[in-house]
């Protein structure tokens, strides 16, 4: 089949998007199982062993097999179009990175029937993951899966970096590049520099487990915190890999649906770079409770505060873009606004976690689980969903139903607050993470029940999306090239674009080539932009 052999970035993009979406649904199912088990005290839906596998695979799947591939999917499809190119720099490598990702995902999931999935959490702390404490093969599957996924991401990131640097259309300086492209350039650079730390961490663990070395084996002279340092040196930049593409999408959607240019384009572009750089200097804020000296902790706290500044700047820039615009509250903009509203909560709780004495209380509690879901679900998932509704017409020639889209938004927005705001409170009530059950006397029962109801709402919202998708795809394509009256180059092509993307490579004279063409009297160059 041509899809198996394709090297066309648009097809590979669709492969990433559909595979990522399938894994997202699987991760969602795992979340539903967790919420069913925790809906009541002393739950019996899952025994502890199965629960541990499910929560581990939920995190691993959502991060490595869903959110990252969905971002790469949009990047793959859209970046060559956004920069006026015919494809990425290395189309065959592009295909390779997709198939290695699929192999990694299949390998990880094959652990379930082959002795059990990994069950020590998505960040797999040593020495719990050593053979002595995790004798099954689940962790080995996890390690091998991570190695394959890291390979896929590294290849893909190099591909995008070269593509963005080398293949921009004539006239498209970095200063005129769409923010989504900036965001993905930084994302790819982060990946290339962060992944080696993870690769080393898991290789050392594999050596410990399989060849009897003692890197993390404390009794034999190894060091337990070595794992945490190596892992989080990757793990923190990783969360910026997860959020930057979504922020990039928001930076594309908000201007189009506000009918205004992005406010402070340069500042937004540089803030992405700042976030990328600062993101490498905060990793030990995941280790505030490990007994590190106060001076070290203070440095990481300071930098964690610092990273809030460029993030806040983006939020104000988006709001200023919408200010005195003419907002079309269509589904893409609703999800972008949802991103902003929810990410603010994630950000505020994140700043709270940077306050070390507060972190000493709420670290490893449901407060953190609430925080991370506000940024990853309220942030990444809402942002990616905005991208889906925005770019769906370009990829399929059809527009998803507005009514169903609004229903999806409403259910998902309410649902997610019903799950994750209770999590914040549960953390303050002392509920630790990763517990398979709790007692009625601990006072956590009603909030857990509420959260489980909210999860159910989120699940329904995705059924609405699926129904919207099926219904829309059954209709004949209208093939509108520019249904949103948008600004950037992808809307110049047909919907879907021809295999060669552009009949002629365009020459670009500004940040919003289509706006300038369609509105010459208000063109950006008239304002000296």
């Amino acid at each position, binding site marked *: 089949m041509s899809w198996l052999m394709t090297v066309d970035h648009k097809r590979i993009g669709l492969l990433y998007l559909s595979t990522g979406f399938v894994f997202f649904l699987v991760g969602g199912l795992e979340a539903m199982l967790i919420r069913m088990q925790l809906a009541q005290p002393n739950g019996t839906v899952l025994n502890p062993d199965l629960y541990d596998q499910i929560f581990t695979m939920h995190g691993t799947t959502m991060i490595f097999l869903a959110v990252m591939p969905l971002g790469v999917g949009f990047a793959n499809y859209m970046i060559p179009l956004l920069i006026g190119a015919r494809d990425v720099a290395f189309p065959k490598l592009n295909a390779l990175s997709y198939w290695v990702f699929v192999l990694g995902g299949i390998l990880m999931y094959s652990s379930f029937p082959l002795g059990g999935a990994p069950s020590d959490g998505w960040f797999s702390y040593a020495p719990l993951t050593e053979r002595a404490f995790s004798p099954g093969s689940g962790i080995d599957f996890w390690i091998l899966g991570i190695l394959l996924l890291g390979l896929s991401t590294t290849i893909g990131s190099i591909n995008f970096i070269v593509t963005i640097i080398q293949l921009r259309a004539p006239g498209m300086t970095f200063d005129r590049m769409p923010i989504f492209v900036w965001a993905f350039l930084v994302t790819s650079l982060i990946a290339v520099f962060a992944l080696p730390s993870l690769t080393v961490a898991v290789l050392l663990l594999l050596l410990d487990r399989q060849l009897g070395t003692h890197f993390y084996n404390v009794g034999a002279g190894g060091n337990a915190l070595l794992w945490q340092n190596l892992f989080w040196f990757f793990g923190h930049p990783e969360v910026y890999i997860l959020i930057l593409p979504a922020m990039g999408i928001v930076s594309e959607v908000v201007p189009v649906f506000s009918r205004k240019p992005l406010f402070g384009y340069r500042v937004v572009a540089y803030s992405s770079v700042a976030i990328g750089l600062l993101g490498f200097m905060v990793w030990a804020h995941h280790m505030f409770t490990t007994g590190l000296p106060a001076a070290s902790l203070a440095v990481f706290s300071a930098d964690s505060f610092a990273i809030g500044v460029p993030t*806040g700047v983006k939020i104000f820039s988006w709001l200023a873009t919408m200010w005195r615009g003419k907002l079309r509250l269509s589904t893409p903009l609703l999800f972008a606004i949802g991103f902003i509203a929810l990410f603010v909560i994630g950000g505020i709780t994140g700043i709270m976690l*940077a306050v070390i*004495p507060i972190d000493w209380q709420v*670290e490893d509690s449901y407060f953190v689980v609430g925080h991370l879901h506000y940024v990853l679900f309220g942030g990444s998932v809402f942002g990616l969903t905005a991208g889906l509704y925005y770019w769906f017409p370009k990829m399929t020639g059809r527009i998803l139903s507005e009514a169903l889209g609004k229903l999806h938004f409403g259910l998902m927005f309410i649902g997610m607050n019903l799950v994750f705001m209770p999590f914040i409170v549960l953390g303050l*009530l002392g509920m630790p993470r990763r517990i398979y059950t709790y007692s009625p006397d601990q006072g956590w029962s009603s909030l857990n029940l*509420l959260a489980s109801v909210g999860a159910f709402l989120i699940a329904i919202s995705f059924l609405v999306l699926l129904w919207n998708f099926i219904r829309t795809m059954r209709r004949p394509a209208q093939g509108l090239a520019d249904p949103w009256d948008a600004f950037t180059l992808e809307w110049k092509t047909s919907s879907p674009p021809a295999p060669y993307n552009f009949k002629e490579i365009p020459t670009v004279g500004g940040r919003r080539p289509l706006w300038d063409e369609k509105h010459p009297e208000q063109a950006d160059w008239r304002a000296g932009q």
Partner: protein
Amino acid sequence: MKLGFKTVAPVLLGLLVSGCSSPQDLLAPHGYIAGKEAWLFWIVLAMGAVVFLGVEGLILFIALRDRRRKGDLAEPKQVYGNRSLEILWTAIPIGLVLILFGLTLGVMAAVAPPSPSAGDLTVQVVGHQWWWEFDYPSLGIVTANELHIPVGESVRVQLVSADVIHSFWVPQLAGKTDVIPGQTNLMWLQSNQTGTFDGQCAEFCGLQHAHMRFQVVVQSAQDFQTWVAAQQASPPAPQTDLEQQGYQIVIKGVCSGCHTVNGTTARGTIGPNLTHVFSRQTIAGGSIPIGQMSEWIEDPQGMLPGNDMVIHLSNDEITAVLAYLDTLK
């Protein structure tokens, strides 16, 4: 149309408040450290609330005021930036985080351990999969599940692990400190109120992480001395036939492989020291009431699947064991 936060929030708040009472509620502090941390949280929450209301309010305001009116196809004024505004909304956040950083350093200093003095009580906490051991080296006491401390005194706590990483968290007294194999982490506790405060392991440590709980029992000086004396006492010899039978199983038989009873040949170290087991309120990692000892011995795997206690005793053996254990107060 977006459901306004201002309509949904009060409803949510009501629902949240109704579920809001827990023995591990860190905003109901009873210890010196927890008190400072809770104070800091309220301040940061207030600052966060102002930002939250401001930004979310702005979003709502813009979404309503600036939505395109029907039939209005004109494009708005194109605005590209505003240097002063950009400086303002960079400088103000920098100012806010500087304040937060100052508060952070201040409270870190306030909750730093007081300088050691000779009379200080030192407790060693040993984290095991999946129970807490509490040793008082200066008093010759080894116990589990309950950490007794005298009120009003600062108690030094040394945290060591017997296996994997755990985390020692009793929210109403202090923030948590991880228990890491290969190093001894130090923290301290002080409560100026007597009472029993619940704690729980806060670092995923395997199958029964959820049930690795403990209590800190803060007692008056006199009650604490009474407890110490009782813990230092030797266990009685078994008297009745049933107790003798139980003694055989516990001290000479299967239990001795994992448990210690002071002054006997039972020297196992995998499970808790049982010398004064019936002086405690809980068993099995602090998660099962002592009154359920019989059910626990009968089917430990059924109650806490995957824990290290794998035994199969007949009903008669269980009766005998209970009779002997009952003397270990």
